[in-house]
Structures are given as structure tokens and as C-alpha cells.
């Protein structure tokens, strides 16, 4: 299936993705023939037990690891096909993708605002514009008053909000989040999930969230189940 930007509102189309670790007796198939599509403004939950291959699938979509097989189209552009990456991976990541992980992974020697600015400055945004947008994003996420604090001085929830701000900095078309609420309590976890929903709907970005938290599934437009490396179809979130 080939999808182009003009034909579809899909921001992500991944087809028959397979990832195998090791070889011979030690071979492990982490993801097998996974196909998924995410539309602009859609927030999708990726569910499944530990070791099901959710995080691996996210790293394949995020161009962090190359799949052994399959094709990835993001924003209408084919980025992986025929065992080869079709784009400059790092440039593509900084321009089109946003990442949020279980840990905020903020650079410890930069303040909250600088962490957000950094994502823009490495994408060649002028310093002054980056500074202004960083403050806007921190304000949007409710942590503007903590802008000049180092990550070590922020709470877990605040750090995760800053990480979300960093992921949004370059107005990515696709945001990938790997268990972003695992280290947060249920209230703050729900707040972060709602934030993703807000971002998806307001900024027209596709959001894929790997999560174990079934209490917040009502936030998602759609859920996907994974088990033993296989995607088990999809269903609208309200059904679950």
C-alpha cells in the first residue's frame, strides 16, 4: 500500500514492519509484519504486555532502529523502503518527529527553557524565535514559571511536561510517546495523556502512545493491541 500526502490524511503509514534481533539460535522476532496507519489529529494508544514489541515498533516508526522488512511513510514521504532509509534520518527526526519517553530524558545541564530551545536551535531556528516559542510552549503546558530551573529542580510531572514541550518544539507531524506516564501518579498521568490529546487535536499532529495505563484509554481516538510482536487489529477507544 502506497500512500501519498495528497491521497490521504494519514501522517503515518507503516506496512509489514518486521524487526529481528540476533540470528540463528538467538534470533528473536520483536515485531512481525506490523501494519498501522495514523491520521493527522489522531491520538492512538498502543497496548500490550511487556515484551510484546510495542517499544520496538515505536523505535522503528521513529527511525531510531531500522526494520528488517517493511515500509514507512511519514507525512506522505517514504522514509524507509527496500531495507534502506530513504532520508537523512537525523534531519528527518528533528524536523518531523517528536519523542517522549518514560523518563523525561532532559539534558541535565540545561534549564527547562533551554531544553526546549535546544530542539529548535539544532533545527536551525533563530535563537530569539526559539526562545520565544520555548516560553510559549512551556506556558501552554503550564510550566512557564519553572522555565529557568534545571531538570533536577523539577518534579517528575513538570519534567515530563517539559519533555512534551521539547517534542512539540519543531511542530512535528508525528509524536511518539513510550509509556510517558509510567513514572507519574494517576492524576498527573491523566493530565499528560490529556495534553497529548490536546496537542493532537489542536496542532493536527498524529500521536502514538505506548501505554499500560488502561484507566486513561477514553482519551484516545483508537487503540491498537500488540502481542508477541504482532499487531492485533485496532478498535475505537470507547469500545474498550
Amino acid at each position, binding site marked *: 500500500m502506497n500512500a501519498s500526502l495528497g491521497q490521504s490524511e494519514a501522517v503515518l503509514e507503516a506496512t509489514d514492519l518486521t524487526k529481528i534481533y540476533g540470528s540463528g539460535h538467538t534470533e528473536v522476532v520483536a515485531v512481525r509484519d506490523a501494519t498501522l496507519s495514523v491520521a493527522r489529529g489522531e491520538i492512538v494508544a498502543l497496548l500490550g504486555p511487556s515484551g510484546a514489541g510495542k*517499544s520496538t515498533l515505536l*523505535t522503528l516508526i521513529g527511525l*531510531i*532502529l531500522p526494520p528488517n522488512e517493511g515500509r514507512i511513510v511519514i507525512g506522505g514521504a517514504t522514509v524507509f523502503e527496500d531495507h534502506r532509509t530513504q532520508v537523512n534520518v*537525523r*534531519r*528527518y*527526526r*528533528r*524536523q518531523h518527529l517528536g*519523542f517522549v*519517553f518514560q523518563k523525561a*530524558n532532559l*539534558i*541535565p*545541564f*540545561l534549564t527547562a527553557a*533551554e531544553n526546549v*530551545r*535546544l*530542539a529548535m*536551535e*539544532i*533545527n536551525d531556528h533563530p*535563537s530569539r524565535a526559539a526562545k520565544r516559542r520555548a516560553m510559549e510552549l512551556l506556558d501552554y503546558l503550564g510550566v512557564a514559571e519553572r522555565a529557568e530551573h*534545571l531538570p533536577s529542580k523539577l518534579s517528575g510531572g513538570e519534567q515530563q511536561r517539559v519533555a512534551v514541550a*521539547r517534542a512539540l518544539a519543531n511542530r512535528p507531524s508525528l509524536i511518539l510517546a*513510550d509509556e510517558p506516564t509510567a513514572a507519574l501518579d494517576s492524576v498527573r498521568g491523566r493530565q499528560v495523556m490529556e495534553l497529548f490529546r490536546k496537542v493532537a487535536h489542536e496542532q493536527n499532529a498524529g500521536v502514538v502512545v505506548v501505554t499500560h495505563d488502561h484507566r486513561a484509554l477514553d482519551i484516545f481516538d483508537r487503540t491498537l493491541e500488540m502481542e508477541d510482536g504482532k499487531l492485533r487489529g485496532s478498535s475505537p477507544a470507547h469500545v474498550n
Partner: protein
Amino acid sequence: MNLASRDIRHNFGRFVLTTIGLGLLLMIVMGMGGIYRGLVQEATLLVDRVDADLWVVQKDTRGPFAEISRVPPNLEDRIRAVPGVSSSRGFVSTTIQRERNGRAMRITVQGLDWPEDRGQWLPIVAGRALGQAHYEMIADESLKLSLGERLKFAKDTYTVVGLTRAMSSPSGDSMAFFTLQDAQAIQFDLSGEAVRLERSARYSRAGRIDLGRSQPQVIERTLGPSSQLPALGPLAISAVLVKVQPGVDPSQVKAIVAQWPDVSVYTADGQRSLLLGGFVDRSRRQLGLFRLLLIIVSGVIMALILYTLTLDKIHDIAMLKLIGARNGVILGLILQQALLLGGLGYVVAYYIGQWLFPAFPRRVVIIPQDLWMLAGVVVGISVLASLLGVVKALRVEPSEVLA
């Protein structure tokens, strides 16, 4: 946004301590070069300052600084008769060690050929040149003597009438200047008992030969002072310094004097080369090798420091790669820190050295040429030392963020 400066700000204490440690190491490297320069300067100081075109010394010796040289004082008169010679003067150099205030005081005694040479060419910083034929001395201030101070050498007491600055012998001992006769009196001083024993031996030797037995007055004369015995020559001097007439090539005079069978002659440059080619050369090589080792050690330590700093940031580097940072951003972080560490270490080395080197017992001479060279070396080792960290950083996979 400069990541290197922000990382340093975040780990400021560690960076400062590391910089000081590296600075101290570089200060030793700097000091080694300074000690070598000091050695050369001390070795050639007198040759450069004494204003002689030729040095005439004992046959087949290398001059008064390299080994013992003894020539008769009348050599001055013989040389003065050589065509093209403007002046000649005797030179005495000997090193003595005396106790002063319970501490050893080493002095290189230099004899000046009074009255032509009163030490007016010396860098006198207090007092004056020699004003009389005996019992005055000009001392280097490093001997910590004061003007007017009186010291006893041999059987006479000398008054300090002038102080020089930075006048030391090739072996690093402080110099003191006397008239030639006074320097000889100090050099050849014998105790009363030694004089009595020598006279007695002389008397005994004279009594065993026919002349002594047949001429009782000869035996009587042997009991008198050595200077009154025509059979004994006057006390030897170390060398004769020759100044040629304006427009005369010193090599022409050298060619004439070199034919004499009892002396060797060197130009000032030749004497300088002899000094530098002797013990200074060995010291230079020794210091050079030690300096090279220190530079290598500094490089290895810097590499380890930078590698450790990089290891501390592996997760952050992986994150930077994951969010799409170019390699240049990451290399810049490591390289800028390396150069900052090296640069600030160099500044620390310079300022601590400026404060510490003057307190060294021997001269440490830091010249701009050496400073520039070391600065280049520091930049070089900073870049080389960062390579280990750079290689590590380049190998980091963005997926390590997930680990």
C-alpha cells in the same frame, strides 16, 4: 546555545579542580623550558657580558668554565704585543664555599684586572664599581649581602661596595667580583701552618743540593715569602681576555696566538659554544626528554579526563542524537570543553609560574617564544586528547536513550 559552557557551569567545581590540576602539570612543563633557558643564560652570562673578543687559556684546556686553566700573568703583556690587539686583561675564576649565618654560601670569585677593569660593565643595581686595588668586592644580590657589609676571605676582610643583579656562574653559583690580586689571594690562600710546612720543606730541599750547601744565603732565602723567591713564578691566572682594535678581525689575532705552544685561544662565540656544548647540552637533553614525557603525561591525563566527561554524558549525547542533533553539535561540545580545559589550564600554569618561578633557587627564564610554542602544544594535545571522547560519542546509538 553553547552546550560546553552550560555543562561546565553545571559541573563548575569539578571543572575548576580539573583545570587547576592540569594547570599545575602544564606549569611544570613550562618551568622545565624555563629552567633550560635559565641554564643557557647562566652559562653564557659572563661570556656575553665581559666584552672580550678572544679568550686565551692554558694549552689544550677548554677555558676557565669548563675545566681548570692556569696561565702566567705575563701572558697579558705578550698578547698586548700582538698586532691588532687593543687591550688584554687577566681573568681569575674560582668557586669557594663559606659558612654564613649557619648556612653554606657558594661564591664564584671573579678577578678583575685593576685598574683597567673595575667592573664598570657589570649590571650594578646598588653601590658602585671597585674603587681601590684591594679589600673591596662587588657581590650579586642573590648572596643576600648588603652594601657596606664586611666579610673575611682568606686572611683579609673585604667590604661590599656594589651589588649586581642576576650574575651567576655556569654552575648557578652567585658571583662576587674582586681585583685580580685579591681573587688570587683568596684562590691560593694557605693556612699559616701550611706556609710554615712549605717553607720548611723548601729549606730541607735546598739543603740537600750543592747550591744550598755551598751558598748559605740561598737556604736562608727559602724561609722567606714565595713572592720574594725569583725561582718561583708569580701566581697563575685563569685566562687572558683580549679585545681587538676596531676593524680588526678577531680571527686574525686568534691565528697568531694559536701558534704559541703554551696556550689555546677561543673567540667569544667559541667559548660560548664550548659552554653550551658541554654540561649545558646534557642538561638540555635531560630537561627536553623530561619535558616531552610530561607533555605525554599531560595528554594522557587530559584524554582520560575528557573521556570520563564524555562517558558521564553518554545518555545526553544519545538523547541529542535522538532529537536529531548533528554530529557537529556533539563534537563541538567535547572539543570546546577540551580546548577550554587546555586553555584555562595554560593560563593557570602561566600565572602560578609567574608567582612561583622567582622563588626557585636557580634561574627560570620564560620567553614569549617558548610560551607560544607551549600554547600550540596545549591546543594540539587538547584536540588529540578529545579524540578518545569524540570516537566514543560518535559510536553512541540514539537507542541508548531507551536503555
